[in-house]
């Protein structure tokens, strides 16, 4: 296995507040990794830095051991193969479910190619396959805005998969889901891992347990502990941070 993503000594502060403090993290190719931490631990900022939304003040962010992600913008990192799912599901509400997937398909993203794009049979098949995978094939013609909250989460995951990314960054996928939906989502993510690298940020401990993967605990923008869920749960510092002093 080789290193997919490497963060080394990353710092970022906002108006004197250190959101990320000497953060170092390594994720292997095909790995499923859960990142947990209390509010303000820097989880979202870390995702912003990986996807090029926020530039770190100092530190290295390397993709596939060669590409410097700090020089790339959001579209650039997406084109490299990093997909991101937001905490609050964001889909294109005034377009159909099918178009949402079609827009996300891995295609040439340049203006001219998009202007003169014609959908091939291959693309149609791929869209149908993805719609079936996220169980939205029966509502393919609906406006995405008319979907339920859980369906929007699934649609967003479908859009993520349509990009065929090497790395998926998933922010609190279980938020607002029923228990059954949560478990199904965990199962889906486990399925995806291996073929794709997946980083999940989550609060819900049951969900993290269901993922059954390596866990990184963030606290004040720094890695506090890393290992299996049972291992980090036993860590004194982690208990202190989570349960309070």
């Amino acid at each position, binding site marked *: 296995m080789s290193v997919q993503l490497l963060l080394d000594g990353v710092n970022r502060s906002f108006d004197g507040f250190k959101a990320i403090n000497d953060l170092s993290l390594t994720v292997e190719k095909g790995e499923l990794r859960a990142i947990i931490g209390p509010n303000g631990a820097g989880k979202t900022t870390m995702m912003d830095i990986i*996807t090029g939304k926020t530039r770190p003040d100092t530190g290295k962010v390397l993709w596939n051991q060669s590409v410097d992600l700090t020089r790339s*913008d959001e579209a650039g990192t997406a084109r490299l193969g990093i997909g991101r799912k937001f905490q609050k599901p*964001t889909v294109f509400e*005034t377009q159909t479910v099918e178009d949402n997937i079609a827009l996300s398909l891995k295609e040439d993203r340049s203006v001219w190619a*998009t202007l003169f794009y014609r959908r091939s049979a291959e693309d149609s098949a791929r869209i149908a396959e993805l719609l079936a995978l996220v169980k939205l094939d029966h509502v393919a013609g609906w406006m995405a805005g008319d979907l339920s909250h859980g369906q929007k989460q699934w649609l967003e995951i479908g859009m993520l998969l349509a990009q065929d990314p090497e790395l998926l960054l998933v922010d609190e996928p279980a938020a607002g889901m029923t228990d059954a939906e949560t478990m199904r989502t965990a199962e889906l993510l486990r399925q995806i891992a291996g073929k794709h690298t997946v980083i999940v940020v989550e609060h819900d401990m049951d969900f993290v347990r269901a993922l059954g993967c390596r866990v990184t605990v963030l606290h004040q923008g720094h890695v506090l502990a890393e290992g299996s869920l049972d291992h980090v749960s036993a860590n004194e510092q982690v208990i202190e941070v989570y349960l309070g002093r």
Partner: protein
Amino acid sequence: MLSLIDRRMGIFLAGLFVLTVAVPVGNLALDGQPVPSYIVALLGKYLCYALLAVALDLVWGYCGILSLGHGAFFALGGYAMGMHLMREIGPRGVYANPLLPDFMVFLNWDSLPWYWLGFDMFGFALLMALAVPGLLAFVFGWFAFRSRVTGVYLSIITQAMTYALMLAFFRNEMGFGGYNGLTDFKDVLGFSLQADTTRAGLFVLSALALAAGLLVAKAITSSKLGKVLIAIRDAESRTRFIGYRVEEYKLFVFVVSAMMAGLAGALYVPQVGIINPGEFSPANSIGIVIWVALGGRGTLVGAAMGAIIVGFAQTLFTSWFPELWLFALGGLFVFVTIFLPQGVLGLIESRLGRKPPPAPAPEEASA
């Protein structure tokens, strides 16, 4: 091409076609001239406004860019055509200077400024009527979109852009006729601008340009690129994370729209016979927005209808109750934004039981 003509586009184009045939026939061929010449000029003017409205709808309705400076692109197109018409006057001006327009002689200039060269050729002027607004939109958009100026901030700086241009064109030193602008045109391509046949011809050209503008805009918005534009309008940052360079798309549609506005301006000037810096005034540009909002943003056809409706209303009001026009226009702004978010077209279509056009989502809160 036919696939672009949906029901609402079909009805509108059919109506436009009837008008394009009936108006010149009524003006030129029938006895007693049932369509007086001033009506031809007036309708031609509205068609230019309609094309301008379509241009704005392309960026605002589909991409969420509320430009309060589209009047600037329109005026620049108009000035390009006006410069050609000035050169066509030739030695027939008051000062009978074969090369210099009257206002330059009046300012004691002894040679034509370099940027007036080439405008004696109609083709060059027409090219400039498209290229200059396009270039301004490119430069402005390249700066603005790259640094992610969006929402009301973008609206405010587009307004500042047209305001700065207005101040600039008011200056005599700019060489565009200063406060008075360009006027006293004689003819275009050898046809007298006073002749009914020329006016009818310009009217038909305006109608064709509007139809072409609508179809181009429809082609763009129906393509995958159109879907990306709507995606940007509704969820800009999601679109970025999927891998689309939002600034490139915005720039593309902004430039196309500016060129369309420039074409509208170029057709407008020979029909009204004057272009002056007042066309750059911020109030004019905001006026365009209400046409689009009234007709129904994001519908193209609605925008064109809105321009024609407001144009008619303005003509009627200013001749019957000039005092009341600003109350009516002001009230229209308030009424449409609060009670008619889908515009007239949305209202008609929902009354007729058709599916309303997808409502544009509220802008991402001023971010």
